[in-house]
């Protein structure tokens, strides 16, 4: 865990803020990287939240003139059916955030619970769990998504479920390894010598020692989930129009990209901004969470 954290220090050149010593000496560094990431993610969040209350046009409203260029009425122009692109883009931001947050929350929770359970199980059950997780991770997530969609229909919920399961396997495997590593440390033995039960050991020792790494991993998975949902939508396995995600906007715009490039460019920019923002934010978290600042 330690080496993992130390391997990703602030990128060279990023002028990190001066290490601050807080009461008790726990070092907190909040890097520029993290700030930039927070701003990028924040921009998308603002667009997504605004889309709940205000859209220039209802996302499904036709009749703006087909494939119109940007104008005062339609700031980003319209698509092939005459729908306002800005409205669709704003709805897409909301869908992307929902997909990312939903999958990360589902995958993170499920993964941590399964991973901790595996770490504490007796050897054979643990070996079994590890094998199952390896198979799950090797299983093509697109195929998994198609199975889920086939069973539940193409909705945002299906996409979140499918992506969440794939994330859960990754998080569970990592949790299991991190927890086992902490379990092997002597302070866990020392805690057991004073009669601490397993629940107390998880709460007092395992979670505080592994959650910084887990939080960063789950944050990174958030970014991957956004991309995965866009891919599923692009393939027609995600939320259907008109409440379309950026992935289906890209799909729609594919045929008309030379006539109305904004239809493809905007969702692309949206995805890049959100995923880059999330990754930078995760980097920032990593620096800030490393509590001892290069322990030992």
């Amino acid at each position: 865990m330690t080496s993992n954290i130390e391997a990703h220090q602030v990128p060279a050149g990023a002028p990190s803020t001066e290490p601050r010593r807080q009461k008790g000496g726990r070092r907190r560094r909040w890097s520029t990287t993290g700030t930039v990431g927070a701003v990028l993610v924040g921009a998308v969040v603002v667009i997504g939240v605004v889309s709940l209350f205000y859209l220039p046009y209802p996302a499904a409203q036709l009749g703006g003139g087909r494939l119109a260029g940007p104008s005062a009425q339609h700031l980003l122009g319209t698509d092939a059916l005459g729908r306002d692109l800005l409205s669709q883009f704003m709805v897409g931001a909301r869908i992307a955030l929902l997909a990312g947050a939903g999958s990360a929350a589902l995958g993170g929770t499920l993964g941590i619970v399964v991973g901790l359970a595996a770490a504490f199980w007796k050897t054979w059950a643990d070996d079994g769990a590890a094998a199952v997780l390896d198979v799950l991770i090797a299983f093509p997530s697109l195929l998994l998504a198609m199975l889920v969609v086939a069973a539940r229909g193409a909705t945002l919920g299906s996409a979140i479920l499918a992506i969440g399961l794939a994330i859960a396997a990754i998080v569970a495997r990592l949790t299991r390894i991190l927890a086992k590593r902490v379990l092997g440390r002597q302070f866990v033995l020392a805690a057991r010598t004073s009669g601490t039960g397993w629940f107390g050991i998880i709460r007092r020792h395992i979670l505080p020692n592994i959650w910084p790494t887990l939080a960063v991993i789950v944050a990174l998975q958030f970014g991957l989930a956004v991309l995965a949902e866009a891919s599923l939508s692009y393939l027609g396995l995600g939320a259907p129009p008109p409440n379309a995600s950026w992935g289906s906007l890209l799909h729609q715009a594919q045929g008309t990209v030379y006539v109305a490039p904004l239809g493809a460019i905007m969702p692309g920019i949206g995805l890049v901004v959100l995923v880059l923002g999330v990754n930078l934010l995760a980097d920032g978290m990593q620096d800030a969470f490393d509590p001892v600042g290069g322990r030992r």
Partner: protein
Amino acid sequence: MKAPGANDAVLEVRGLTVQTAQGLTLVDGLDLHVAGGERFAVIGESGSGKSVTGLAVMGLLPQGLTVRGSIRVCGEEVVGAPERRLRRLRGSRVGIVFQEPLTALDPLTRLGAQLGEALARAASAEGRRLRGAGRRRAVREALEAVQIDDADRLARAYPHEASGGQRQRVAIAMALACKPDVLILDEPTTALDVTVQAEVLGLLRRLVADNGMATLFVSHDLAVVAAMAERALVLRAGRAVETGEVTTLLTAPRKAYTRELVAAARALDDSLGDAGRAPGPEGWS
């Protein structure tokens, strides 16, 4: 209820055999007997099985080791006991101090919180709740009992911010939190430098005398054993070589191996001269 008579064995080990999954024997048919309040030592070189013995008494051997024989702590069998029973035993009857306090303390938890947790657990075993200001006071008292001066500051520190001696004092305070009948000291001063070692040994002697608990002192250092124990067992390759009064063992060893150990320690001492031994536990030579 917690002070067995001086002649009752608080720790009784019979035919203890520990084997690895590969069939390697770490401890072979070990017998030992520690009476209430007695200070007992297990002497042996690295790999002789002394630390394994200490862990076995706690019921904390790593998975994959098979244990045979019998270990009774205050009459309760440890070998084969379910985890629930062991946990109660560990929280009340036995405490252990490990060699390296830095690894025995959670790096991400403040020292006061770790000690407070141990104290609260010991209190709840007696049916008391210890939280808030009461817990903070108990932590301060426990730290002062192990001769830590700026207890309030240290309670807020993380392990890496404390010195080796302070860390080991905190670890000792944690082991003492449950007022154990038997305190296992697994080379508690080996990781400390010599002057700190002398202070910690002095502290341990005083604490053991004050609390009247029995100790199982595991060490390879004969001078330290002489200062810390009345009786000792010499362990070699998992087998008991010789058991007896420490003074007898060190001045008139009967077995060749014990003689070798004593001679080697003496030779080392002589070659180091006066500077070799720090002021501290009164030497035996």
